């Protein structure tokens, strides 16, 4: 039985539901030698501001139980250099490119989106309103309904590209933010970004990260992320969701898809295994065959709560 792995996410057509998560895959080209980028659903490139940024000093990463904390601070080359230096190579590789953008002000988001609207090879814009590691921008917008609305509508006005705000889990009710994003013109939402967290070296009584706090990712956060995707699906069934949070295997991805995600992003797993992509595709294909489901799309949001639970 042939199965269809392709998905449609708010007008964005992807060959598979597996997207490399922003911040976990460089600008994509770093992996061009060992991964055929055209076989990924898409590549969400590292978050870009208008200008270059240096990010936080080391130490930027620390390992925690079944997860990791990072505080990179959005080091990046700025949108213009990205368009000039990286986008042509990504086009040549046949990658579907989601450009993750971040601003310190609403105007900066809109300006970056305008630059990208004129660039060749951008499939969609992912709005980073959820980075927990920067003092201005990111989560500052995404943790207020007003800020979410303002950024999404400002960018909506300047681009016809699919617009995908990436939501933070560091709020009381993430579903209300999905609704706010949809009402401001988002085509889809991606969730979740990392959980604000910290780790302390008790011997020195100093924080383990230079930024003191950072974002928690990896399998440790997966059940919370699945719950949040479920809540967004319940609150806005018409809004496509890209789910993420500690997906290591196709089975993990399936949890998100069944909860309501039309596609998923793979972040931390890529650090552990850069060759994870084939395994994900094979595992998903095998599942669809075993369950006699013709396509991934037919599986999205098929969570069955009518028959009780499976322990």
């Amino acid at each position: 039985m042939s199965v269809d792995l392709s998905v449609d996410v708010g007008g964005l057509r992807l060959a598979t539901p597996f997207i490399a998560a922003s911040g976990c895959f460089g600008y994509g080209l770093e992996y061009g030698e060992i991964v055929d980028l055209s076989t990924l659903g898409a590549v969400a490139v590292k978050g870009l501001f208008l200008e270059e940024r240096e990010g936080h000093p080391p130490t930027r990463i620390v390992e925690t139980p079944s997860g990791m904390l990072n505080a990179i601070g959005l080091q990046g080359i700025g949108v213009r250099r990205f368009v000039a230096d990286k986008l042509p190579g990504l086009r040549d590789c046949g990658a579907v490119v989601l450009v993750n953008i971040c601003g310190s002000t609403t105007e900066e988001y809109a300006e970056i989106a305008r630059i990208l609207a004129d660039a060749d090879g951008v499939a969609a814009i992912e709005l980073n309103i959820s980075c927990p590691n920067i003092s201005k921008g990111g989560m500052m917008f995404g943790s207020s309904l007003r800020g979410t609305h303002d950024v999404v509508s400002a960018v909506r006005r300047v681009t016809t590209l699919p617009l995908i705000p990436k939501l933070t889990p560091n709020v009381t009710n993430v579903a209300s933010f999905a609704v706010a994003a949809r009402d401001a013109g988002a085509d889809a939402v991606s969730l979740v970004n990392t959980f604000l967290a910290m780790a302390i070296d008790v011997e020195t009584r100093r924080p383990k990260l230079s930024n003191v706090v950072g974002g928690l990712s990896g399998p440790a956060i997966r059940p919370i992320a699945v719950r949040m995707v479920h809540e967004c699906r319940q609150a806005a069934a018409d809004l496509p969701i890209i789910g993420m949070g500690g997906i290591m295997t196709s089975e993990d991805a399936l949890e998100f898809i069944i909860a309501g995600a039309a596609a998923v992003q793979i972040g931390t797993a890529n650090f552990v295994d850069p060759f994870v992509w084939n395994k994900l595709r094979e595992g998903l294909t095998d599942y669809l065959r075993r369950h006699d489901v013709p396509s991934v799309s037919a599986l999205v949001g098929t969570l069955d709560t009518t028959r009780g639970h499976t322990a």
Partner: protein
Amino acid sequence: MPVDVDAVVLSNTQLSHDYNTVILAAPRLGDQALPGQFVMVKATCGDDPLLRRPFSVFEILRDDDGRSTGVSLLNKRIGVTTRALYALRAGDHVRCLGPLGRPFSVAAPPEQAWMVAGGVGLAAFATLAAALRTRRVDTTLFYGGRRADDLFHLDTFESLGVHLRLATDDGSRGDHGNVTVPLRRAFASTDRTTPVRLYACGPTPMMWAVTKLAASEGRATAVSLEQVMGCGLGGCYSCVVPVRGPDGTHFVRSCLDGPIFDGGSVVWEQLGE
């Protein structure tokens, strides 16, 4: 091109209560590895610990016909992964992704090579010593440890024709003090016009001290930095090193642009611990 191999442990020699040498059957890694490159190692299954850890390729092992059969890793038991590596037994499996990073630039005659190692920093130098031997470069290893029984694989380096200059914190072997003691003496007895290429790998304060000492003699040092890494492939931007360039200081990824850096360009004050 880097490969990810599921390598079988051929042997694990525990050298002391915290150091060991693991030999891995990984011919494809050994075929490609150049002096100074590293591999990302996952010594345990499952999600905890989650990430791989970077290790220098210590030696490339060859059969009688010179074909690569695998690599060895020199390990010091400190954290979770290094504890797992210390406890390995023959027949166990270890995932190894590599070789990664930019290699050392190998000296050529008439240059001499001075390798300066502190503790487990020795791991960067066996492959380099072998490459220098092939080029018939006059090579000296300055090697510091805590005590006499904390200095390892001296025979490996002696068999490669390397001169040894040792130092221990307690004076139980070689000079009393750190490795800069014999290094300082070597500078004092070497004419400034003699071409010498310096390499250093060890604790950050040691590499900083070696870089400063060499600079005071008008010489550069290639340092092998060991930053905390997430992926080893340039994806995560965790392992950055502050490097001084013509347009100011920038954070560069040690997995892609390193792990070998010109010590003189590193902004040591900002490197972190």
